[in-house]
């Protein structure tokens, strides 16, 4: 794996350049892709509207901790983790956590569904970032409250390619 890292990075950079040039033409026409229930080609506003509708979203900065590097040198692998302060009891727990990358062509990176058995609402994953932009974590609690936090991440080399 390691030996290929440089050539792979170069290839990604080239792909990114091609993809970005073309994105302006295609972004306006979202199209469904195969078997994607969570993520689709759409803008972040469309994605949030599709999933959450008009439900109010509160600022969750006191409760939700979104941990992601401020500068991502390689957009192909960006570690992100979300910690939510929650008792995680059957009466009050964190139900789902969405991680959304605003500038990606598939803005919803992933959705995590948790239960009270998790004991702690702390999750993480490695995502791709196509370009510099906001990354949001949207937390849905068991009572339906939505909490959102976002942070800007600067991306040196985009990792989303085409």
């Amino acid at each position, binding site marked *: *794996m390691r030996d290929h890292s440089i050539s792979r990075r170069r290839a990604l950079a080239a*792909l990114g350049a*091609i*993809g970005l*040039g*073309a*994105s302006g*033409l*295609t972004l306006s026409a979202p*199209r469904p*892709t*195969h*078997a*994607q*229930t*969570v*993520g689709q*080609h759409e803008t972040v506003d469309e994605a949030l509207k599709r999933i959450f509708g008009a439900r109010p979203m509160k600022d969750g900065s006191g409760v939700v901790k979104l941990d992601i590097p401020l500068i991502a040198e390689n957009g*192909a*692998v*960006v*570690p992100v*983790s979300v910690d939510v302060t929650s008792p995680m009891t059957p009466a009050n727990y964190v139900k789902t956590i969405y991680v959304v*990358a605003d500038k*990606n*062509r*598939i*803005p*919803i*990176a*992933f*959705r*995590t*569904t*948790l*239960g009270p*058995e*998790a*004991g*702690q*609402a*702390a*999750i*993480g*994953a*490695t*995502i*791709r970032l196509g370009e510099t932009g906001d990354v949001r974590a949207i937390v849905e609690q068991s009572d339906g409250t939505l909490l959102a936090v976002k942070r800007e991440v600067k991306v040196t080399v985009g*990792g*989303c*390619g*085409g």
Partner: protein
Amino acid sequence: MSDIGKVRVRLPSSIKPGDVVRVRSLVIHPMERIERDSKGKIIDKKYLYINRVVATYLGKTVAVFDTTQSVSENPTFVFSFRATDPGTLTITFHDTHGGKYEGTADVKFG
């Protein structure tokens, strides 16, 4: 690509009953990105990537990740669960081509 589907699951070295345990898991998978032709049109095909990760412990689901192509190649997933009894933690990765990759870790107290 013969390594595809290799799964590694890591638990902390010592776990006490009732502890909330943080699990790190890694799967070797290409997580294919969208490809475009020379005109910039998306090539319509069935892309190979993981779209669901399910973690179970003592027969109960503790965490489910629904993932898209915005997740990196060879992704890692971190989550926690409360270790109450000795048992097996199973993490199953499903990809869009029907592939199913499984990793397990034994929860032992000591």
